[in-house]
């Protein structure tokens, strides 16, 4: 049977050598290598559940009066987009399960990418020849965040609308071209013409997923070409790669990971409520709710918008640069710009242009570990500032005080983190203590 299949393919495509190479492809074993895989498998779950959702969702801003199963909203004016999301949740068998699984998968997807990125940066896997893949991966992260935003903006619930209003304002705030672009995308002034919803829909279900799938394919092809990095160890050199072969053990373990990711996401989707749009209600430009929290990966942008002092650039009573530009556009551009240029920055600092296949442990290069920690702590402080209204509410701190606290923290914390991390890494390197087990 197997022989027949192998021969069938080989006679027609000459695949036997390729198949042999594939089955014996070597994967170095380390748990951190699974983070990227988790992201990949979350993407698979997103595509699968997304196709299902697209069969039921209607991307239309046409007005209807709700008459469906969810009693509290019966008789309310809403758009078809909102109504079809309600119907999908309440009247389609298994619809809510897949909608919630999709939403959870988006959250896990971005989280896995960020952790994967941290692994790459902390272990020096970003050095030549993998700087190429750092750029592709960073692009994928940006696309994933945008894709998530586009996704939760679709149902036209109150949270969607508030998010879109802010997105519109950020686009509008871009110097020179902002107003044109915003009017172009929305087909007019916010909340825009009917065409906006189908545009958002096609962007979310077609354009970005296609681009992402292509980039993921290139990302993986580059890995196959360059082969994985590996941690140093007996028999491991810059010139070889040591690990499990694909067949049989690794294939089974990786399949297991795919199934586990799908299983956990389905359990979350079934048992833990997420984005209950019927509680938010339909969006109107004239309504807003307090304490609205978007998906976590938008938090750093909210935080930046909130922390930004009321700075605007005016000339002769005319606005040049409105405030949302700084927190909503400049800040993410800065963060992503630094990520893109990190391989070049590191080469600049170390003067090291060699090809690297062996990974460093984070402690091995204290300055790098400290720099990356400082950078991410900076983003993390701004991220935390995105939830300062919740903090103010639950811990009874003054909101104004918190704003000032976070403004100061966004400068001080990265500095402290830098020096502390550098010290700790150097110490660990010297003593060879294990940071968690505290033995040798």
């Amino acid at each position, binding site marked *: 049977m*197997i022989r027949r*299949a192998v021969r069938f393919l080989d006679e027609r495509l000459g695949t036997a050598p390729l*198949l042999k190479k*594939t*089955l*014996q492809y*070597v994967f170095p074993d380390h748990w951190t290598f699974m983070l990227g895989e988790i992201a990949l498998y979350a993407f698979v779950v997103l595509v699968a559940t997304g196709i299902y959702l697209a069969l039921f969702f209607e991307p239309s801003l046409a007005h209807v009066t709700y008459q469906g199963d969810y009693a509290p909203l019966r008789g309310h004016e809403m758009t078809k987009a909102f109504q079809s999301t309600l119907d999908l949740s309440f009247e389609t*068998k298994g619809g809510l*399960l897949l909608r919630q*699984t999709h939403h959870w998968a988006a959250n896990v997807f971005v989280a896995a990418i960020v952790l994967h990125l941290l692994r790459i940066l902390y272990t020096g896997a970003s050095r030549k020849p993998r700087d190429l893949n750092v750029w592709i991966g960073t692009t994928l992260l940006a696309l994933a965040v945008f894709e998530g935003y586009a996704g939760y903006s679709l149902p036209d619930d109150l949270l969607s609308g*508030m998010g879109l*209003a802010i997105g*519109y*304002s950020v686009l*509008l705030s871009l110097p020179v071209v902002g*107003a*044109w672009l915003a*009017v*172009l995308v929305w087909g007019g*002034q*916010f909340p825009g013409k009917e065409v906006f919803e189908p545009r958002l829909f096609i962007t979310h279900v077609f354009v970005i997923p296609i681009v992402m799938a292509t980039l993921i394919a290139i990302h993986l092809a580059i890995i196959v070409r*360059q*082969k994985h990095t590996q941690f140093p160890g007996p028999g491991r050199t810059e010139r070889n790669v*040591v*690990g*499990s*072969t694909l067949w*049989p053990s690794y294939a*089974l*373990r990786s*399949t297991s990971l*795919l*199934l*586990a990711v*799908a*299983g*956990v*996401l*389905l359990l979350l989707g*079934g*048992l833990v409520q997420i984005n209950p749009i019927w509680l938010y209600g339909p969006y109107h*430009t*004239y*309504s*807003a*709710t*307090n304490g609205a929290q978007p998906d976590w990966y938008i938090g750093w942008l909210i935080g930046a*918008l*909130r922390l930004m002092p*009321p700075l605007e650039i005016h000339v002769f*009573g*005319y*606005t*040049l640069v*409105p*405030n949302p530009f700084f927190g*909503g556009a400049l800040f993410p551009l800065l963060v992503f710009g630094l990520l893109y240029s990190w391989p070049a920055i590191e080469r600049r600092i170390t003067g090291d242009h060699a*090809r690297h*296949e062996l990974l460093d442990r984070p402690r091995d290069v204290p300055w790098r570990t400290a720099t990356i920690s400082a950078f991410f702590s900076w983003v993390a402080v701004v991220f935390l500032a995105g939830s300062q*209204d919740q903090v103010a509410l639950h811990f009874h701190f003054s909101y104004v005080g918190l704003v000032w606290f976070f403004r100061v923290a966004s400068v001080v914390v990265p500095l402290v983190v830098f020096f502390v991390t550098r010290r700790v890494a150097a110490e660990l390197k010297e003593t060879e203590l294990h940071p968690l087990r505290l033995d040798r």
Partner: protein
Amino acid sequence: MKRWLIAALVLLLGKLRPPRALPPGRPVREPDRRAENLTFLLLLCAMAAAAAFIAFYFANPDTQFLGATLGLAFVLLAAACLVAGKRVVPQIEGVKERPELEHPFEQDEVVAVIAEGGEGVSRKRFFLLAGGGAAGLMGAALLTPALSCGPEANRVLSRSPWNRGRLLVTELDEPIVAAGIVVGELVTAFPSGADKEDIASPVIVVRVRPDELDLPDDRRGWAPEGLIGYSKICTHAGCAVSEYRYPSYGPTAPGPAVVCPCHYSTFSVTEGGKRIFGPAGRALPQLPLAINGDGQLVADGDFSGRPGPGWWGVRK
């Protein structure tokens, strides 16, 4: 992806038959019976969970039941694969040489080949410049159609449904009786006959004591009886300014203000919508109000500034 598919295919086919005997001379690997039994057990449980999902789908399609059963089926299958991968099948370690990526010699050759193609061509620089220029202008030409909404933008963004005498109505299109608004209350109103979703439509109307008012000089008479109206759309990033803080205590309390829940820009109600906290860069535009013969609220003109988020060129 392809090699994964092939691997999955081979995996699937491989499961159907017992493995062939190893060639003689190699030590025979003892099967791990316990791990095999555990894998079987997990596969059986996964089957049961999947069957339960189907049953629930027909009998009681509750999201919790569906999610728990299907999720469990996946997790059990994952566990089966994990045990099989770690204990049932042999662990084979491989060592591979890495490919040499650099080809210094070929690099030179490529450069030479490219140079060869330019042999005997004069004025190369000129061609490069002209070619680049053509490509650049071509790009600009392709982008130009996008400008068709360009000159429009300022006009589109500056439209307003408000004018002198326009009646204020509630969400249900009922006129608003001035005397019905009490101090401390916040009313959302719209221009009668206009699209309520338009960013320039919604306004908030509150009543303050006339002696509290501290409006700019050119807005005298904009707030009859202390009834004062502002655009409801935040000048920061377009959220609805939906919270109202009216102090009913002591003289040291901050004055009445409206707050936007998105990034907490706070605008003073008595001082013409001045921003007193938060990231907004412009004041909340004020709508001049008047009371008509029937005691209903009407607009007495357009806003004091453009409502909603700002853009390059909007008047402050």
